[in-house]
């Protein structure tokens, strides 16, 4: 099927170009750990966003906690500015069920009441289980349920998409 996936860096550049016109001074870019933070770091630099980057670990908001417990490595969430009235640009690497994004939105509202939240993902692979759609997607494709799309980062910071 999709034996080779497009280069992640090219996709991020395209994503940045698509997002750029809608950026406002109130925009705060927030990446979801771990892959979403990598993409958010790139977008933050490409878009020359003046507001510091935010990161979110949604482990405490997951809906499967009572089944699988706490993620073994929870990272702190860091939101460097007050979210009250801000335009949030939420970033994740892959959109699948939509449950991560739901958890992330719940967490954001515990920090304040943003004016808007928009979603940008590197890959939208379909099979959504919730009424959540991206506002910006680098790539949209259909992948059989048993396959995973992974974003990985090499030691030199290079990002690669793979299908397994």
């Amino acid at each position: 099927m999709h034996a080779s996936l497009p280069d992640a860096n090219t996709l991020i550049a395209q994503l940045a170009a698509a997002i750029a016109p809608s950026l406002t001074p109130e925009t705060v870019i927030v990446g979801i750990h771990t892959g979403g933070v990598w993409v958010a770091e790139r977008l933050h630099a490409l878009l020359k966003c003046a507001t510091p980057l935010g990161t979110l670990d949604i482990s405490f908001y997951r809906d499967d906690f009572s089944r699988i417990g706490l993620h073994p490595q929870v990272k702190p969430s860091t939101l460097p500015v007050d979210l009250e009235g801000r335009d949030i640009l939420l970033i994740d690497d892959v959109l699948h069920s939509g449950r991560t994004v739901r958890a992330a939105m719940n967490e954001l509202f515990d920090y304040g009441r943003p004016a808007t939240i928009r979603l940008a993902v590197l890959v939208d692979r379909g099979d959504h289980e919730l009424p959540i759609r991206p506002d910006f997607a680098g790539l949209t494709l259909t992948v059989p349920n048993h396959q995973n799309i992974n974003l990985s980062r090499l030691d030199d910071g290079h990002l690669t998409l793979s299908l397994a």
Partner: protein
Amino acid sequence: MNPQLNQDGSLRHLLTLDGLPRAILTQILDTAESFMDVGEREVKKVPLLRGKSIFNLFFEPSTRTRTTFEIAAKRLSADVVNLNISTSSQTKGEAILDTVDNLAAMHADMFIVRHSQSGAAHFIARNVAPHISVINAGDGRHAHPTQGLLDMFTIRRFKGDFHNLTVAIVGDVLHSRVARSQIHALTTLGVPEVRVIAPKTLLPTGVEQMGVKVYHDMTAGLAGCDVVIMLRLQNERMKGALLPSAQEYFKFFGLTPEKLAYAKPDAIVMHPGPMNRGVEIDSEVADGPQSVILPQVTYGIAVRMAVMALLAGGSAT
């Protein structure tokens, strides 16, 4: 087999730090670190334990421990019920289990147990349904694991790690469940030198076998220390004449600025509370720049959140 662990090695109950592997202690401390910022947000709550019922079963009075457990549970969105059960109305064994069975019938998910008898939390843990977890919040002279953990969290926050530290525990080790939990945690986490400083009458026999160096003199014992942990002089447990007087104790073992000067200049001073000012610690030290006694209280909330979250979560994977 350790009754505190599930077959896959994850935490089932928290009863004592004795015998818990370093990986579990580190996991709890790391998880607590990520709970730290929850207390500083607009909404000081995460939905992790929504719908869970946690019962604080206090058979012995406590203010700080019970309150911080309650706050921790509420920040995890659990429902908390506080029960202060006077031991005088209890006839031990059977009656405790009756209490527990009744609460289990009210669909309890977790018990936090404080009792004046060593082993009470173990006893309850052995007799609860598989989905119920038990946290020992202090049993007799035996253990107070969450206090030990929050002390380790405090040390790690101020000193970075455990590998080059000299830590002194000063005072009534004999009656102290806190000291036992601290000693187990410090040695498990790899602190190279743990000292206890106390008069002979306030040390349990064979304390050296726990891997500590024993001192009976503050000058020698505090020399070169990075961390000084003061213990509360357990007046209420002091039956018989172990000490001449509180004044005499303060003269030899009370932490004053002069005695603290023997430790390293950047040494931190800890105390599990409640303090007896002018007995084991001088106010000038307790309120001084090296004291981290109030941060200990704040960190206690994050550490207790971490323990509850790790116990309450499933482990299907």
